[in-house]
């Protein structure tokens, strides 16, 4: 029975994540438009796009991996979502709660892109493979500061689980954002790469690579990919909130905090032109990693 409730809760969480993620996506477009001094699409534009895509006919496939590629992607984002505690007290939207472990999290986050990469690989479109290698390369870049930040937290509080960190955060009473500022900075900078917004969006460069890994995916495939992206966005933001901003007790607080975090990569991206892959990698291994190092030093000293 408990399991059933948990599964139900997971599904609800998924739906919320989907909706929130989609809305954030739409808001992103809207804000971008406002920054560029235009009206922009309505904030629900992403929903329209998603439904349109799902209603579009999908008449072809390039083989089984191509067919299932988006499912791999979805596994990754939903698993991430399930591991990240959405609310501090788990009263609402309980998820399956695997005692979310950070190392596991890092790895499950890469599961999807790799599965997707296989799918796009099977299409035989060279652009897709190029995009994938760019994405993977960039991942090597941003994972370093990201892991540094996480490790700094882990060694400071002697736990590798998200819940453990949240408890530690609750006990100290200070958000890690303030008690471990360097880790926070490193993690935020890594987040730029994770979201693949503007300076780091060479992976799916539309005109150069014809949107890269997604280039052969339309219709349903793209719909699943899009929803996966939305869920993933929400999961990642929640993770950041849990880790650095003291978690959230209820939905409004959660939305507030996540949106505040979400603004950072968006606003940075709007003002920064695209990096080449190696530039992006070097960027991540520069200041972000330096902050990560500072974070570790701080954690060791404390």
């Amino acid at each position, binding site marked *: 029975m408990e399991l059933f409730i948990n599964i139900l809760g997971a599904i609800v969480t998924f739906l919320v994540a989907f909706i929130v993620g989609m809305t954030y996506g739409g808001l992103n477009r809207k804000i971008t438009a406002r920054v560029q001094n235009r009206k922009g699409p309505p904030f629900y534009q992403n929903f329209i796009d998603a439904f349109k895509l799902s209603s579009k006919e999908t008449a072809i496939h390039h083989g089984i991996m191509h067919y299932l590629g988006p499912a791999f992607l979805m596994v990754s984002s*939903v698993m991430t979502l399930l591991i990240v505690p959405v609310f501090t007290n788990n009263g609402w939207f309980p998820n399956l709660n695997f005692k979310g472990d950070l190392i596991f999290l890092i790895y499950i986050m890469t599961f999807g892109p790799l599965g997707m990469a296989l799918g796009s690989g099977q299409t035989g479109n060279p652009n897709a*493979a190029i995009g994938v290698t760019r994405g993977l390369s960039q991942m090597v870049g941003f994972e370093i500061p990201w892991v540094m930040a996480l490790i700094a937290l882990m060694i400071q509080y002697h736990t590798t689980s998200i819940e453990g960190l949240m408890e530690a955060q609750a006990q100290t009473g200070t958000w890690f954002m303030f008690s471990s500022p360097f880790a926070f900075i490193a993690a935020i900078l890594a987040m730029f790469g994770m979201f693949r917004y503007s300076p780091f969006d060479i992976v799916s460069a539309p005109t150069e690579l014809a949107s890269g890994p997604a280039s052969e995916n339309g219709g349903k495939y793209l719909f699943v990919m899009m929803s996966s992206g939305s869920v993933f966005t929400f999961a990642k933001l929640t993770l950041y909130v849990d880790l650095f901003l003291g978690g959230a007790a209820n939905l409004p607080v959660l939305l507030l905090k996540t949106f505040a975090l979400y603004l950072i990569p968006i606003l940075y991206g709007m003002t920064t032109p695209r990096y080449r892959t190696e530039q992006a990698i070097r960027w991540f291994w520069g200041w972000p990693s330096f902050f990560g190092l500072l974070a570790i030093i701080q954690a060791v000293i404390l």
Partner: protein
Amino acid sequence: MATLYLIFIIFLGGAILTYYAGKLGSVLQDIIFLATILGATSLFYAGVHINDFMSFNPGGITLTWGINYFGWLFSLIVLGLGSLAAVYSVGYMKGKKRRGYFYFNFILSIMAMLGILVSQDLISFFIFWEIMTWSSYLMVIYNGKDDQKLGLKYFIFSAIGAYAMLMAIVMVHSVTNTFLIGNMIEAYPQMSLSWQIWIPILFLTAFGVKAAMMPLHVWAPGAYSSSPMAYTSVFSGALSKMGIYGMVIILVTMISHLPQGIWFRETLAWLGGLTAALGTLWAIKQDDAKKLLAYSSIAQLGYIITGVAIGTELGLLAGLFLAVMHALFKGTLFMVVGAIEKQTGTTNFTEVTGLIRKMPWTFFSALLAIIALAGIPPLGGFVGKWMLYEALITSNHYLLVILIFFASTAAFLYCYKFLFGFFMGQEEKEWEHVKEAPATMVVPMVLMALFMAVLGSWPGIILNPINNGLVDLGFVSTYKHLWDTSILFNSWGNQVVLKPLLYSVVAIFVFFAIVLIWKGFKGTRYVSTKDISSSGEVPGENENLTFSLGFAQPFLRAVGPVMKRQIDRYYTEFADGLESFFEFLRRIYTGNGQTYAIYVFVFVVIVLLFKDVLF
């Protein structure tokens, strides 16, 4: 314990019989070969009792044979992988030349590895070590084409290691007057400081060569890629583990009795980390699957070395679990490459592409193996990686863990390259005729792949023997608190529950797969890989659209400075320098008899002048 003798006799006799059976018929040869390996394997597991030792004295040296739990653990790798690879080789070697030679060396290698595991004294350890070395060397020169430098390099490095080990062995002997490993470990803390430093270094050289540790790894890519793939799966999967085995039973055990050993362990762990990082980077650069896997092996062994070297409970568990996993997935991957090589005749990514629909089972095993290699849940590789990270973090190796993390993230690049290069991409007309490999080759691969999947959720199957082995070596009484059959803990008490993870991953995957197939798989139509959106252009039949050259170029550009120089070149330059020095030196022999006579008188005069010093 006479069973052990019997096993070795079966191996030796089987090797010779197999060699000569080739004249009677290839089927008979296959049967004898399989019977030897499988028979000895089953005899080993049926008839050999653990912790039952026997001694004998050839040449006045006491040799002790017997197997303990730790050896038994590695015997799983050696014999398990060996048996599967043997079945595989029957398919692989069909229609190839020099089968007798191959089988002979194959059996001898397996025998030597088993011998290493059963020897409880350093001399028989060394003897089997060397048998292993030269039998694998003979395998490396199996092709006999352009490979001579590779084989030579392998042998020279092995010899450097072996001689270092021999030196350490006799040094130990001069102190303890026995060759028993146990006595050596007991005597080690009482030795003088310089010996305490030198002996581990010498042993490390030996094991480091076999385990392809960083400055000593340069033989590995060539040797792995030039021996027949059926053997390379054993070579990389099991034979390199002997280095790890030696490290654990000798180095780690020895050092753990000594407080100053921390320095050594740190050095070793860092060497492991560097090996992992550099191995990964070079693997990304390779265009040949064999080379890629060879470098990947180096990198993976780096993780294992790191895990073993940090020497904490979790670290040892992680290292050894990774060792087992590496045997499984690298064995599988080399078999995959072998199957592809057999079916297509090449292993170059730039040549062969789009095999997924032609060799689905091979692809399936390659996929699982790659997932395990990359350490992605829910397969077994993740368990090892997780334990390694946790071990590193909980034992305060903060920078090392980042290095390791970098390596394993970058590993995704070559993992993807491997799968993409062979199975994805354009399905060229050139490879239209390619068919799935024969059953004897596919079955071992798929079996191993499935076993990896099982280990991902029930790692206790392997962790239990590891635990027994470590207890046997005299480490802390039990590690049971670190894992349950499918739950892992770190020493801070955090845990990962594997089974529900598997279930939920499968459930989510199935759900979305159904969503995708909702209107029916039939509703969609397969289109060939020529039918892609390439700016409206219709790719011609012979137009190669596959992206395979300069695969991860941006990444390689980013890490360019690190890869500017190969360690290989330093060795080559050193060797060239030595040779030219030798060339200079041999001109002492001028060829003029008179000069030689003058040498005699010069010698006499010098000795007479210095006679007070000399005598």
